């Protein structure tokens, strides 16, 4: 699979490989995290979320990992497909505050 250790704005991945997208969050009080996918010309689409009492959560072909010690969040996409090409955003929020703060986003391009 292909991954980025630090947040990078772009990620190019071979079709069929696994992708890892990283996100560093800034607020140690944040306890709810979401990954969104945004395709060109569309609004952000919910992928998966995780709360701070968990360190891993799995969905369909996606896994989110949370490391609160270093304030790091990652999204793993298994068997990346052309339809996975998009910009991926992580977002965080704090208890009793429903506002989301978004990261800068990572553009994922899938190579055939």
């Amino acid at each position, binding site marked *: 699979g292909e991954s980025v250790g630090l947040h990078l704005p772009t990620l190019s991945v071979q079709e069929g490989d696994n992708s890892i997208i990283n996100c560093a969050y800034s607020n140690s009080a944040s306890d709810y995290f979401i990954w969104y996918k945004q395709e060109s010309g569309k*609004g952000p*689409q919910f992928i998966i979320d995780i709360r701070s009492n968990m360190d891993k959560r799995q969905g369909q072909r996606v896994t989110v990992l949370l490391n609160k010690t270093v304030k790091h969040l990652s999204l793993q996409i298994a068997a990346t497909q052309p339809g996975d090409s998009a910009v991926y*955003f992580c977002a965080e929020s704090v208890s*009793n505050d429903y506002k*989301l703060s978004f990261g800068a*986003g990572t553009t994922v391009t899938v190579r055939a």
Partner: protein
Amino acid sequence: DAGITQSPRYKITETGRQVTLMCHQTWSHSYMFWYRQDLGHGLRLIYYSAAADITDKGEVPDGYVVSRSKTENFPLTLESATRSQTSVYFCASSQGRENTIYFGEGSWLTVV
């Protein structure tokens, strides 16, 4: 299920004009949000609303006005448009703090 609809989807206006972007949701969600998305800044919260007649400022509220007389509508008004308000605007809604925030398809606004 219509979800969230935004109008207009595309708008060109002149500096100094008043512009209103409409947002309508069919889920009866309590919370509604307006974000703007600019290259290099990601998604930034402009205003949000916890319920009808309750609104509050987000990260970048200057130059914008909102209202929420009905639960399903959350219009955003630019009182006197400036070029710096050229952006893509996203409306979003959520049932509550523990629930996913869903986004509309966006309104592309150009101020000339």
